[in-house]
């Protein structure tokens, strides 16, 4: 997994609450058996005026000129500024895959849906929770200033605005550690293989019906 330490980039808006994962990446693109190539279909139903199909060349599709990510001022954006409960709905990891493939490394919002939040960390994307009032301020600053950039420092858990304001954020220690070092958490869990085997032996005695039923 890609590590995340320091990142500065252009900020783009997703200015509505309860953005669901169907909106982030519609279901027809979930038929892919790969984990890459979802970027052109990120926010497909908002971004294009027609209905997207898997495998289609998106460069010739009609763009929705009103959608933020289609505006030149947000070109190259790598930080998404969003509203409450971002990523609600389905557990599809295709949502962070699409964000990552598009070029986003960080999403800032007042709150995230639990499964989406967790999925981000598995894909080198940092979801940052900031107070709703701060997010509001960032939206205002972003709209007021073309080319608006933020700097994110995961090590010190802070976001810095162009004018130098610093906003601290919380992130749990294990996720932070994995993301800072780009660690594969399956490898980490397998370091506890002995503990897992020992737990399993106990479980087999306590709850024998959990074993060998499905064969």
């Amino acid at each position, binding site marked *: 997994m890609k590590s995340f330490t320091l990142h500065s980039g252009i900020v783009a808006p997703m200015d509505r609450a309860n953005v*669901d994962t169907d*909106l982030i990446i519609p279901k027809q693109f979930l*038929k892919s058996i790969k984990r890459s190539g979802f970027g052109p279909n990120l926010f497909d139903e908002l971004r294009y005026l027609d209905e997207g199909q898997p495998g289609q060349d998106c460069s010739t599709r009609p763009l929705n000129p009103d959608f933020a990510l289609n505006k030149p001022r947000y070109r190259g954006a790598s930080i998404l500024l969003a509203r409450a409960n971002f990523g609600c*709905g389905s557990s599809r990891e295709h949502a962070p895959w699409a964000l990552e493939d598009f070029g986003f490394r960080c999403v800032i919002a007042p709150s995230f849906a639990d499964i989406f939040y967790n999925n981000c960390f*598995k894909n080198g994307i940092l979801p940052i929770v900031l107070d709703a009032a701060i997010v509001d301020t960032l939206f205002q600053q972003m709209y007021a200033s073309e080319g608006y950039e933020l700097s994110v420092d995961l090590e010190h858990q802070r976001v810095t605005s162009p004018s130098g304001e610093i906003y601290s954020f919380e992130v749990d220690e294990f996720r932070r550690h994995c993301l800072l070092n780009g660690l594969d958490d399956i490898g980490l*869990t397998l370091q506890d293989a002995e503990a897992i085997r020992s737990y399993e032996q106990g479980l087999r005695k306590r709850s*024998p019906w959990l074993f060998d039923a499905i064969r």
Partner: protein
Amino acid sequence: MAGQTLYDKLWHNHVVVQRDDGSAVIYIDRHLLHEVTSPQAFEGLRLAGRPLWRRDANLAVPDHNVPTEAVERSGGVAAIADPVSRLQVQTLDDNCRDYDIVEFEINDRRQGIVHVVGPEQGATLPGMTVVCGDSHTSTHGALGALAHGIGTSEVEHVLATQCLIQQKMKNMLVRIDGALHRGVTAKDVVLAVIGEIGTAGGSGYAIEFGGDVVRGMSMEGRMTMCNMSIEAGARMGMVAVDDTTLDYVKGRTYAPRGAMWEQAEAAWRELHSDDDAQFDRVVVLRGEDIKPQVTWGTSPEMVLPVDGHLPDPAMIDNAMQRAAVERALQYMGLQAGMSITDIRPDRVFIGSCTNSRIEDLRAAAAVVKGRRVASSVKQALVVPGSGEVKKQAEAEGLDQIFIEAGMEWREPGCSMCLAMNADKLGAGEHCASTSNRNFEGRQGFGGRTHLVSPAMAAAAAVAGHFVDVRNWQEQ
């Protein structure tokens, strides 16, 4: 020490390693797989050269992509018309063969929606940790299990280690006291709960559903409730084990028998919150206050009782909320202030992991029996949740009731709930749907979903608009 909640007990029973940083390695008893969220996980396993940790903990079934139309379905995987869907279902078959995982293939009678199949086969049981790459895994919490959806990276994690790294959630009790009116179902209750706490109300919590109404519900009803915990923002919902649970589980294919059943029952009887357990949040609703519910917007929290009127953005002070309501009304093609009963569905969908079990089909059949679908309704689909549900419904003659009413009786699968197969809404069409999500485009590009109970969907199919099923005279 204060007593433990049901969630606390399930959590503590599954901690393999508690780490200093607050995370824990949690053991997973049952892993369910389907075709959409597993291919990349198997690929990851192969690329890393890792073996499967424990074969018998896994069970797979294709459901999202499978055709529900009988002719296309009869040819099996090879006959799936959409080549992209076909490859995905075929990939599940190939992976299960390579890793020797038990799979109920497309035309196996045990095939169906993964969250219908698990409890039905006794593959998911009380006290288990159950995960699946699907957010509606919360369904299995109805059995008194700790069950939640995971992403594909975690699917791979479970395949490789039989564990997940988790942080403990907070506890929420949602208690429904009293009794329900006739015609009001589990679906209405859970929609009312979502209307009350909001679609993010349960974020960070594990929800336990309790109270007399839930105690009085069938397992099917409890599954409907737990299924939609995720629409309230909670990854998991659960219900304490009682006689209803045990009666449901006993005798199922993969459930323990004989002496092992006795041992299991003794353990399962402990699976309830202690009297002095502490919850971080308690929400109480009165069953008598709950009317049949209909969603009008593009989030499950945009829900009203059937006698309600759509909100007027002009009356909303909060700018974010006002914008959300305006956008939803525009997407849905509906006017502020209009009556729910004036909404006219173009299509009706009875199915999904929320409402495709036998009790759901019986409720819908009771409403349409001897009646006809309104001429204004283009299509009314009934999609049983599994081959076993289908067989049972046919044994009871429910299929004939639906067909005589002008509805289509289909093969089992996820179908129009998320429209990954051919069953979908056209742009601008309204659907009375027993599924779980009314997001923009969920049931088809530009489609407009109204979430309701099976009885309400059936009544809307006949009347041509939403009606209060409490006033329906069954024939």
